[in-house]
């Protein structure tokens, strides 16, 4: 059990290293606070401040324009008719609307099909399509209600209008009572009841038939600012342990204490384990502290499966420690370690989505990110804390992280010199 004594010794050394403690604990906290304050607004999802409803006007008639205008006039609801694509704005299409839903960016959309105006003019029943994400049924019902109300208003159907007015009053008052960011906490039951009633009422009298179509979101949630920054910065600064693993090994070699170890009756694997375990533990402690502070101080969600979080943390800490030993095996001097770790850590961090969130990256960057352990760890963390997934669902990511650790160790053992 010699490696245990090595572990205790190395932890003592590390804990006494003020610089290391600042780097591993205070700096990431500082980054979390600064980045979260600075970037907070960009993380507030589209549906945070107002319900955003994409409106696709395929008809381009006077009647359809009337409906669009009426939708635009509603308070608490933002209608979008344009999309910015490659820096140029253009009219929104049905495909765009479907994409927005599929990507979880919006929960519902209104489509006014070609021929809407003509059919109304001919006295036939015209159609309006409401797209909705079935996973967000409550929110989608709001969109439905909005559409119904507007159509009733525009068409001057008295009965429907009365129903819709009642609905809107309640919707507005409900919305007003809520903090702007708390979209998920709408008293949706109430809204739903109101809107269903209003919808039914209107549909009976309306000239317009409202059809619904489902577009399921691939991934509904994107992380909030702390759900991004706490795991992001924790993983980023976890990898600073690479520097400490590598320089602690090099320092021992240079100081000659490594000779003492080699001359003493300890096996080589025990020596390596003795260098690995303390730093691994330090990494796990670091992650635990960050997530604890993230939860209790910043109100970051932790999801429903703490064991899954622990598993991810252990796997990514192992990968970081492995990378540290690999750097120690390859680098020949303190300067090389400094240069190598700065280059490797910062590149991996930037690529891996710890600095810039993965979900804002273009697709090819998101794919490229998969070459870093960081991305696998972050996605796994967010699966748990944002998407509420559990151990079973993060096992693939944990396996990949262990794979990274395995590759790092294998390469390190191959290159490591005990002399």
């Amino acid at each position, binding site marked *: 059990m*010699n490696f245990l004594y090595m572990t205790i*010794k190395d932890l003592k050394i590390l804990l006494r*290293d003020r610089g290391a403690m600042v780097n591993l604990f205070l700096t990431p906290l500082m980054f979390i606070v600064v980045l979260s304050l600075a970037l907070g607004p960009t993380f507030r999802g589209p549906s945070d401040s107002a319900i955003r409803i994409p409106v696709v006007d395929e008809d381009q008639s006077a009647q359809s324009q009337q409906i669009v205008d009426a939708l635009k006039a509603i308070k608490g609801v933002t209608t979008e008719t344009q999309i910015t694509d490659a820096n140029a704005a253009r009219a929104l299409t049905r495909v765009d609307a479907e994409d927005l839903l599929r990507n979880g960016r919006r929960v519902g959309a209104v489509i006014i099909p070609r021929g809407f105006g003509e059919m109304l003019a001919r006295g036939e029943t015209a159609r309006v399509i409401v797209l909705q994400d079935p996973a967000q049924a409550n929110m989608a019902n709001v969109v439905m209600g909005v559409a119904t109300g507007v159509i009733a208003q525009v068409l001057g159907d008295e009965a429907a209008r009365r129903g819709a007015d009642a609905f809107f009053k309640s919707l507005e008052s409900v919305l007003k009572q809520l903090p702007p960011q708390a979209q998920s906490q709408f008293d949706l039951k109430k809204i739903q009841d109101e809107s269903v009633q209003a919808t039914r009422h209107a549909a009976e009298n309306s000239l317009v038939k409202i059809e619904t179509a489902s577009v399921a979101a691939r991934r509904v949630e994107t992380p909030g600012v702390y759900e991004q920054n706490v795991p992001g910065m924790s993983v980023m600064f976890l990898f600073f342990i690479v520097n400490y693993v590598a320089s602690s090994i090099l320092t021992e070699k240079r100081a*000659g204490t490594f*000779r003492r170890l*080699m*001359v*003493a*009756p*300890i096996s080589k694997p025990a020596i390596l384990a003795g260098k690995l375990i303390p730093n691994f533990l330090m990494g796990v402690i670091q992650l635990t502290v960050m997530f604890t502070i993230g939860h209790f101080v910043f109100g970051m969600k932790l999801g429903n499966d703490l064991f899954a979080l622990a598993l991810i943390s252990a796997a990514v800490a192992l990968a970081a420690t492995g990378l540290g030993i690999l750097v120690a095996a390859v680098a020949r001097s303190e300067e090389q370690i400094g240069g190598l770790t700065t280059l490797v850590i910062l590149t991996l961090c930037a690529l891996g989505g710890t600095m810039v969130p993965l979900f804002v990256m273009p697709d090819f960057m998101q794919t490229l990110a998969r070459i870093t352990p960081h991305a696998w760890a972050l996605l796994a963390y967010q699966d748990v804390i944002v998407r509420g997934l559990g151990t079973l669902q993060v096992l693939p990511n944990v396996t990949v992280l262990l794979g990274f650790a395995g590759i790092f160790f294998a390469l390190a053992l191959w290159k490591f010199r005990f002399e």
Partner: protein
Amino acid sequence: MSNIVQVNDLSKTYGDQTAVNRISFAIREGEIFGLLGPNGAGKTTTISILSTLLAPNAGEIKIAGYDVRRETARVKEIVGIVPQELALYPTLSARDNLEFFGQIYGLRGRALKARIEEALEIVGLRARGDDVIETFSGGMKRRINLAAGLLHKPKILFLDEPTVGVDPQSRNFIFENVQRLNQDGMTILYTTHYMEEAERLCHRVAIIDQGKIVALDTPHALIAMLGGGVIHIGLRESPNNVIEQVRTFGAVKTAQWADGKLAVQTHNVNAALVGVINAFNAANVPINSLEILEPNLESVFLHLTGKHLRD
């Protein structure tokens, strides 16, 4: 006395550089054996091989009857090492350092505590035991470095230049420690490039240069090689007749011509000097340089290798 260390035909190369070149020697149980040589002579390499740290390219080494390459575990228990570097953790206290080094030698609990105090006592630093190594003077660090090698009571202790960069007081302290440990029965291999240390401490000294042992004997016998001292006379060419004449002087033991230098071994330098100089004057042979080697190990090294121990 039996041999506790037996080295036969040991060689070690780093790439194409030969660090140790077919050396053989034996260390007797209970003696202080010196390895005296200049920088790069191969002292640390030899110690590293003897302590199982490095694998030799060729040769056979037995320590207390165990083969160093095959019975590594046994050898590790018998051997203690005090590396040339300060092999300590600077941010830990002296006691923490010793505790850790004791633990990796399998010491636990009360036995460990007792050994730590004993080792601190030996090097005279018990009062400073809880201080962090960083705050120690160079000499005190060296003493803790020594203490760390003593914890598991090795039968044989390898000391690799333990006094480098040390003040005279600490140096004396270390000398006394080494002598006391030796009196208590510990065999010691002591490397140094200070001839005074080898002369004062060692029962026998191997003089090593460029990976080869050039002489091995007691300091007394080595110095006796020089007799009453040696005179080195630099000359432009070999004047054979004068050399013959010098050899007949009563105070002169031998006179050897090599590399533009005549080395005159004497029974007594002062008695021989005037006669030798007069002989060259009379023969009209100009003397380029004149060097008198006092009878000490430095002179022995110079005499054997043509180089000074310290450059």
